[in-house]
């Protein structure tokens, strides 16, 4: 492979400094074999501009820290190879989320609010008895719950969602996926009606315009639309009852 000279146009803005406007800053960089945006940004920080802000933790597409717009598409930067991109690469922070600085956004607080709003924990009146065997569960059910829990809260689906970009109370695909995770868990004793208030409104399933961008943008390749349809069906059934 012939190594190219890359140009990275990077969004710069520090909201803590009043009066300063956002701008795009270009950096040039020699491409190396197997280079990811993670490697590229760290090289820029080390050799050219140590003030550049961005977030990486696992750098293995596991922790969900590094969502950003790569040439306009929400992507996990750590698993984006430069060899799959043109010579000029534009990096912008994810929209919808609060900007911390440059490419760093506060997805953490957004998802925490979501968990609080949807009561995203197993609701049960049982208490734990340390002297008893665990309650039994079929392996099939366990795997189903695991599949519904694989979301890494990176925010790529939210950033690319038309509704989420105009309604800041929209739960988005990640939110509905989270609700489905507890719906499929037999340990959660919440009756389905309990979800109705949060989910069956414009901020819930019925806000979705069905444009499917979420599923295209999901770096975990989760079946977001399938789960969304599942939640929607459940809510519609309850809607008839109440």
């Amino acid at each position, binding site marked *: 492979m012939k190594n190219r000279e890359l140009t990275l146009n990077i969004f710069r803005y520090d909201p803590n400094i009043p009066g300063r406007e956002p701008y795009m800053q270009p950096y040039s960089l020699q491409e190396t074999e197997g280079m990811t945006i993670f490697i590229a940004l760290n090289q820029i920080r080390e050799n050219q501009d140590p003030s550049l802000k961005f977030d990486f933790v696992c750098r293995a597409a596991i922790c969900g820290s590094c969502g950003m717009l790569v040439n306009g598409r929400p992507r996990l930067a750590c698993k984006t*190879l430069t060899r799959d991109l043109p010579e000029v690469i534009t990096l912008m922070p994810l929209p919808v989320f609060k900007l911390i600085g440059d490419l760093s956004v506060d997805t*953490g607080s957004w998802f925490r609010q979501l*968990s609080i709003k949807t009561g995203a924990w197993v609701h049960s009146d049982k208490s734990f008895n340390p002297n008893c065997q665990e309650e039994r569960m079929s*392996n099939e059910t366990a795997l189903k719950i695991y599949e519904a829990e694989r979301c890494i809260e990176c925010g790529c689906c939210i950033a690319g969602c038309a509704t989420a970009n105009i309604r800041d109370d929209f739960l988005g695909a990640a939110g509905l996926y989270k609700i489905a995770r507890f719906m499929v868990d037999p340990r959660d004793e919440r009756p389905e009606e309990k979800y109705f208030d949060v989910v069956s409104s414009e901020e819930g399933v019925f806000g979705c315009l069905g444009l499917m961008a979420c599923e295209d943008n999901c770096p975990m390749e989760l079946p977001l639309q399938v789960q969304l349809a599942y939640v929607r069906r459940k809510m519609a059934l309850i809607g008839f009852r109440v």
Partner: protein
Amino acid sequence: MNTIVTDVLIIGAGLAGERTAIEAANQGLDVIILSLVPPRRSHSTAAQGGMQAALGNCAMGRGDNPSIHFEDTVKGSDWGCDQDVARLFCETAPTAVRQMAYWGVPWNRVAAGRKRLPGGQEIYELKEYEGLITARNFGGTAKWRACYTADGTGHTIQYTLDSIVIKLGIKVHDRMEALRLIHNGDKCMGVVARCLRTGKLYTYISKSTVLATGGCGRLYGASTNAVINEGSGMFLALETELVPLGNMEAIQFHPTGLVPVWILITEGARGDGGYLLDKNHHRFMPDYEPKKKELASRDVVARRMIMHMRKGYGVESPYGPHLWLDIRHLGEKHINTNLREIANICRNFAGIDPVNELIPVRPTQHYSMGGVRTNINGAVYGIKGLFACGEAACWDLHGFNRLGGNSLAETIVSGMIVGKKAAEYTLGTELTYSYQQVNNHYNIVRQKIKNIIGGKLNKKRHENVFELKNIMEDVLMKHVGIFRNGKDLLKAVNALQELYHRSRNISLRSSGTGASPELGLALRLPGMIKLALCVAYGALKRTESRGSHYREDYPRRDDKNWLKRTLAYWPEEKDLPCLKYEPVKITEIPPGDRGYGESPGKGGTS
């Protein structure tokens, strides 16, 4: 000064920190957790393999009990662990796993029926165990004992614990970095912290403080660890001058980290028949290990790989020499089904399709057995009101080699125990502190920041923080790696000492204002170099081989002289740790043969 007061302050929102927080909050205490990142982004989420607990539900785990788990752990540690701690741990682990199930972890379950293992062996899962928590095989264990959720064990445990933290309303201040412990020479009273959103300083005042800050893998240039694992809790403790770090020389390496991103390629690739090749595409492992070849224990394979590269058979690359992992002969179908995870990692992170291409690998730093030394209750040596648990601590469950799956289990079990003990302590103490003392510590941090940002004028040299960090990483990689010897270790100590002096003259390239990432690193680096010195100096002085610590010039375990734990203290104004030693507690199993491997220091990891 922005001041926040709480009963229990927990530094770290990984598994150890969150489990501790839940325990303390359940005792009715006010708890605040600080973290560099949102809890669910902590390094713990990256663990895929499993969590050891002797449930004995699956066919290959039948007959298992805490005593067998205990024996595996002691042998794995090469008799370096505290046997009282190991006993307590093994007895508690089954309850810990079941409680996680109660809270929501979707552990894989036993499905009854006949099954054929990859090796051809047939097993039969009994109906009476159907639906109970199952387990998989990990190195160094007599039974299948690692409970798991598909390929995302760390993820599901972390998400479940965090859901309970949210449910209980425990406050988490994320993007808040603890920079210094506040203490009066006798008692810890909280921390000075820097907000990573704004750069503002805060003081947290607490009755008790818990360090759950994880490992220090990132001292090394090539580590499977998350990039935030820089060992800050360890040097915070060290910098009190009161607290020792235990066994810092005990560092675990994994044979196959993916070059150049050092992401873990699990043992499955070699387990299913993958080969290791050198620059001439020669399969070299059979030359060294005719019987076990690529499937000798991990530390042995790692040692052989390094040896081979030292002889000049490594493949040169911009990221340093490496070897190849070859799974092409396993065929497209097998790779894309049975080895899907590995194939995805190769495609995503190296742009390599392992169906037709070789995978570049090199042994990679993986785990730190050492850490902040505590007693069995998690109480830190040398100071009151300070506790530690998880990878940050040297509790000492792992001795000189951690068994795979014992680390996740340690985070949860120690979180339960240490959380309870910290709560007991907190309920029996008063919040006492003097404004003067708090202010002193606050001012020390402020002065440090001023010196780094504004001190350009009166410094003789202007050192670049990134350059120094790279040198530190290289020194450890080169001289304090898998093979160690007196000459190289001395070189490392000298080089790190020089580096330590240079780190006092760091100047920033940027303005350092606000949440400057450069300032953040500049504040941490001197502490990181101190840790590197504890590793290198401890290794130099330990003239034996035990577990992961392998000395070419002292290749035998020496129980007569070295059945003891290193305790590293750091006196301010010194450029070297002061080493003391304490005996290792042997209560049940006296030192003997580990029962596997022909050279010292073998054992499985994850």
